[in-house]
């Protein structure tokens, strides 16, 4: 008798019927995340995330480039919200150099960052809904995302990898047309939000698929180092825009939405409210936009002079030569860590400077990396379909996760 019981227990403990690789080539793993699933029928017994398929050595590349030329690298981290990456980078480097962008540039940056946040959240909504099977939300969200892309194109010349902010300001001033479009967009965006919500917000199937799935308690969220909508969904109002405001966030009013249950549905609601708040911030930025310079007076030390000046003006030529070969040389020795609130969560830039034009060490704290590690906690014991919902709710971008 005892023997049989022992055997049964042992069989159940190491019971995996099927080992399954989900990803890197899988439609729902948002890029090249690979999950090794140990399945018992449809139930996940063990889930092991594997990352690194998109590793490009951004941190090391950054150490080999001047502060100026490392900026476009940050576009490729979270390529869904490259504007926010750029801004975070510039804020961090500005702190290292002890300069600050002028007010107008700060407002422009805030406005662009919120546009980037809307675009990123829209892509999240689109893919999350698509993964759960609501295919129509996908194209609705992409319609509005295209509007933002077009605005970015008008402003920066690029749709996805914008490289728009500069150390000590922004590259070019906004036009009146851009401001009008941003304002109009912020005005009409809530009506589009209602369209998405009509499709899924009260949909019984959507509620069944998201409520009570992938629960993360507040304690767990803190212990796993979550940030952004992930931690706010668990009921902790942690938002760097409020706690350590950078750019113009201290001058604009917005709410930080939090969830109660910490499940997929709460995180969905949190992001939906954030979308509305972002639209409000854009509106405030447009209304409060001050006049003035868009670059710090010290900016020539960090910004390449225009091409025609380089060709005609000796000083500019020397200036450009130094900036290209050695980089801005005025950094103090020491280290600096600046975190900004990206759509995905807390994105931190950590620089160690030895006073030269290149960082001695560049370290990136990527929210997607941290969030991917919480997947086993959310998935184990659930079904395959829940894995998909959980990956969607994490809103990870592997470009940033693998760096």
């Amino acid at each position: 008798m005892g023997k049989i019981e022992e055997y049964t227990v042992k069989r159940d403990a190491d019971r995996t019927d099927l080992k399954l690789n989900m990803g890197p080539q899988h439609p729902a793993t948002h890029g090249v995340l690979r999950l090794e699933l140990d399945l018992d029928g449809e139930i996940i017994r063990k889930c092991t995330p594997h990352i690194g398929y998109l590793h490009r050595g951004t941190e090391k590349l950054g150490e080999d480039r001047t502060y100026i030329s490392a900026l476009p690298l940050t576009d490729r981290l979270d390529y869904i919200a490259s504007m926010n990456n750029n801004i975070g980078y510039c804020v961090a480097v500005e702190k290292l150099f002890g300069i600050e962008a002028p007010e107008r540039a700060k407002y422009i940056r805030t406005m662009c960052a919120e546009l980037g946040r809307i675009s990123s959240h829209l892509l999240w909504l689109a893919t999350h809904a698509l993964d759960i099977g609501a295919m129509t939300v996908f194209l609705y969200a992409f319609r509005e995302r295209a509007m933002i892309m077009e605005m970015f194109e008008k402003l920066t010349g690029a749709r996805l990898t914008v490289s728009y902010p500069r150390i000590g300001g922004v590259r070019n001033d906004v036009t009146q047309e851009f401001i009008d479009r941003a304002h109009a967009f912020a005005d009409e965006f809530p009506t589009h939000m209602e369209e998405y919500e009509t499709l899924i917000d009260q949909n019984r199937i959507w509620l069944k698929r998201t409520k009570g799935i992938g629960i993360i308690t507040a304690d767990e969220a803190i212990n796993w180092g979550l940030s952004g909508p992930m931690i706010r969904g668990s009921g902790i109002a942690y938002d760097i825009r409020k706690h350590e405001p950078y750019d113009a966030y201290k001058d604009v009013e917005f709410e930080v939405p939090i969830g109660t249950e910490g499940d997929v549905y709460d995180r969905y609601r949190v992001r939906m409210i954030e979308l509305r708040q972002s639209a409000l911030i854009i509106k405030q930025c447009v209304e409060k936009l001050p006049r003035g310079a868009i670059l710090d007076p010290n900016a020539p030390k960090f910004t390449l002079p225009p091409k025609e000046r380089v060709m005609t003006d000796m000083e500019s030529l020397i200036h450009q030569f130094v900036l290209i070969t050695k980089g801005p040389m005025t950094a103090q020795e020491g280290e600096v860590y600046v975190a900004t609130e990206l759509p995905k969560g807390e994105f931190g830039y950590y620089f160690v400077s030895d006073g030269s034009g290149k960082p001695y060490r560049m370290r990136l704290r990527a929210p997607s990396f941290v969030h991917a590690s919480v997947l086993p906690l959310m998935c184990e014991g659930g079904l395959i379909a829940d894995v998909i919902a959980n990956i969607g709710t994490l809103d990870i971008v592997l470009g940033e996760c693998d760096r």
Partner: protein
Amino acid sequence: MEQYSAAEKIYELFSEKALALGIPEPVLVIAAYAIPCLVVINLIQGAAGMLTYAERKISADIQNRIGANRVGPFGLIQFLADGVKLFLKEDIIPDAADRKLFKLAPYIVLSSTVLAAIVVPFGGSFIVADLNIGLIFIIVVSSLLVVGFLMSGWASNNKWALLGGIRSAAQIISYEIPTALSLLCIVLITGTFSLQETVMSQGLWPWQWFIFHNPFSFVAFFIFFVSALAEMNRTPFDFPEAESELVSGYNVEYSGMRFSIFFIAEYGSIFIISGLAAAVFLGGGNIGLDPYESPLHMQLLMVGVFFAKTVPLCLVIIWVRWSMPRLRIDQMLTMCWKYFIPIAFACLVATAIWLLVFNGNGIFWRMPAP
């Protein structure tokens, strides 16, 4: 009342001439039956093609897109272009696959789908064979689908396909019970399994349809429709395919023509199930005339009426796909076992009570005098 099937009519038309020419009778009989068979199979394939087009256009409309518009006027022959493309695609059979089962599976799926079309009354006397076990026949052949799906999933030697195959087995067999029970509600009323007779005992006007026969047949219609969605693997029950979960499910290893056979079967079954729902619950092609005695133009009108009921049902099925998220496999099975089956049983019992109490009459529907 003498009833002729289309085949018998063809036989009558040509028998004298053909026998005079010296063609033996068995050949003639087979030929007479083969003609409507070929027509119906082509009809189903055409319907499947048009439904893929409809699906693309409707989804495009729902999603603010344009949809197929390059091949032919309004992209109307896009499905032919797709067919040609799939026709020219390499046929890949994975190394570790069970080759025999892998090759056999699409045929089983396709034949189980088109076989159901035999007993679907297309209005008038246009029915391939008015079997007196029509409804049972449809239930039987549609459960053959399970074998095909399971076979394809198992033979592919692919984990996604296997999961898809098992899912489809669990799903289709579960939902077969409410489907059958909801159809039985109507059999109780008519006392026959013949689909043609079921259609004939209804009428032109909505209050003469069985969906409005009594409150329980109204419920039965929706149970039938939703269960049929599940049996066809359509969203919100498309677990065997579930492209975001199982990549493409049971057909993930299939390519080219073999893949397109699965596709034709899927869209063909949408048409057939809609046709069945129209015939059993919505009066089919009945316009209040005897389908066997009416002149040809009235019979064609009946076919038109049948299609006028079937096509909107097809469109609803497509509409549902583009508006609904996907359920989860356990929720889907729970829904079937905890809600649909008890409700279907309750409908059956309640319909029986209704018939006993009201002497076989419905709210508006009157039992035909014997």
